[in-house]
């Protein structure tokens, strides 16, 4: 059963009543996004059971990520979005864990990696101007 706002969203996103029923209990915007990216409702439901929202399922499909891989990332405390972005960037879990231990959340770390940063220099750079004697730049 949709709320009034969800019903308006469904109409606004061009969903038919059949589509709303087919995609329940996803929100209209999610159903619209899934439809736009040719994601099957069964796939969306299966991934949702693993805690993966529609946007991340679409992204995972685009980068060729499996549910097993997602589960491994989630098991390490990352999100499905982190997993897709890491795959897209060509980085494995161990690397992102290392960045996380140095205080960089995954999407921040992945942006830096894409920009050509090494962990050591990024860590030193973020503390530049904070600690002139370099104590803080050692995460240990």
């Amino acid at each position, binding site marked *: 059963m949709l*709320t009034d706002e969800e019903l*308006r969203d469904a109409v606004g996103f061009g969903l038919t009543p059949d589509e709303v029923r087919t995609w329940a209990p996803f929100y209209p915007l999610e159903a619209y*996004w899934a439809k736009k990216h040719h994601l099957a409702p069964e796939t969306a439901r299966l991934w949702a059971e693993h805690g993966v*929202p529609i*946007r991340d399922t679409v992204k995972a499909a685009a980068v060729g990520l499996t549910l097993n891989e997602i589960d491994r990332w989630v098991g390490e405390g990352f999100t499905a979005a982190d997993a897709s972005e890491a795959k897209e960037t060509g980085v494995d879990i161990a690397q992102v864990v290392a960045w996380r231990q140095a205080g960089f959340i995954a999407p921040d770390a992945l942006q*830096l990696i894409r920009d050509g940063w090494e962990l050591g220099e990024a860590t030193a750079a*973020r503390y530049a*101007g904070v600690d002139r004697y370099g104590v803080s730049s050692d995460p240990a």
Partner: protein
Amino acid sequence: MLSEDKNLLLCQTGPATPMGELLRRYWQPIAAVAELDDRPIKPVRLLCEDLVLYKDRQGSHGLIDLHCPHRRADLSYGFVEERGLRCNYHGWLWDESGQCLHQPFEETTHPEGRFKEKVRIKAYPVQAMAGLLWTYLGPPPAPLLPDWDMYHARGYKQVVFSEVPCNWFQCQENSIDPVHFEWLHTNWSQVLRGEQGPRAPKHTRLGFDEFDYGFVYRRVREDTTAQDELWTTGRVCLWPNCLYTGHFEWRVPIDDGNTLSVGWFLDPLPGDQPFEQARVPYWYSPVRDPDTGRWIDSHIMNQDFIAWVGQGTIADRTREHLGESDRGVILMRKKMFEQLEVVKNGGDPLGTIRDAEKNHSVHLPVVGGLPRSVPPGQDGPPRFPFLAGQPREIVNELQQLWAELSGVGSEQAGV
């Protein structure tokens, strides 16, 4: 954290810069329609370009170079004619297409030279919608000016401008930063009122979705659940430089160190009889307290301004430490970098509309939905909470409307 070159990529908006090229693919609001009705010439600095907006006597709007191509005089001191804007220095006359229509001395002494046909001025298209004037600075053909569904909702509309002395991108990052509501607007407001607490309910969960016109962010607080509209509907970070929460807040780059905040607001009105607003009023909101020289902190968007300018004229993202609350900000930056590449490769970036069939009352999700209705128990227009300095005549006009539409005496409606 970003490297310095990446930071500048997001912040530089002049011609031929990557972000300047991206933002030039979208219509930008630059003035209120009523503003040009009141005064037909307005200098406009937009995306580091100095321009002049005018409305000629036959009602056409034009946006042309601020400087006359003759000897560079300032056309904002010119005067409008039946058609076009005339320079006050030697009388050259320009139309909205950039064509020179008249060169008085040249045409007197050398009419055969047809010099006016050989001189042009930079000119950009202007369109009116929702009480605002919009321009497009990109290559032709221009996409369609989006016709959002909220423009058609019943209510009292007003447009508010503020000039914020910082870069546009830190303003737009605020559009996808849910946790700041808890601190900047709720907890700090409590402190400003002298209250000791309790503090606002904490955010416990954030979610982000993409759609054709940007992102939707969802949130759950200690006092809400995933059944609440804050999660089920969410709020829109409208691509590329707007926040939509039932009202619009565009962050329009004046140049790399200044942003024009353009707010478009709709107040629900009582009753259900048709209501057409002949003129959408506009006003300029001050950002500094003239007595103290400090930023005004009494209203929601003023509080946002304080956060933005506090980050520096251009936020130094080489020195930031991003946390879990910044996932939306990082998501938006990544999308910006992707879209810079799209434009560089000759593509149409996210959110541009070219199909006229699809550009009718385009839907945007909003908590509370459409149509906007007056909350139960409300018997007069609420105080305007967003920006400081709302003029008394707008307060009065809204109260008068309430009195007329609710059938109560003007005194009861607060007039």
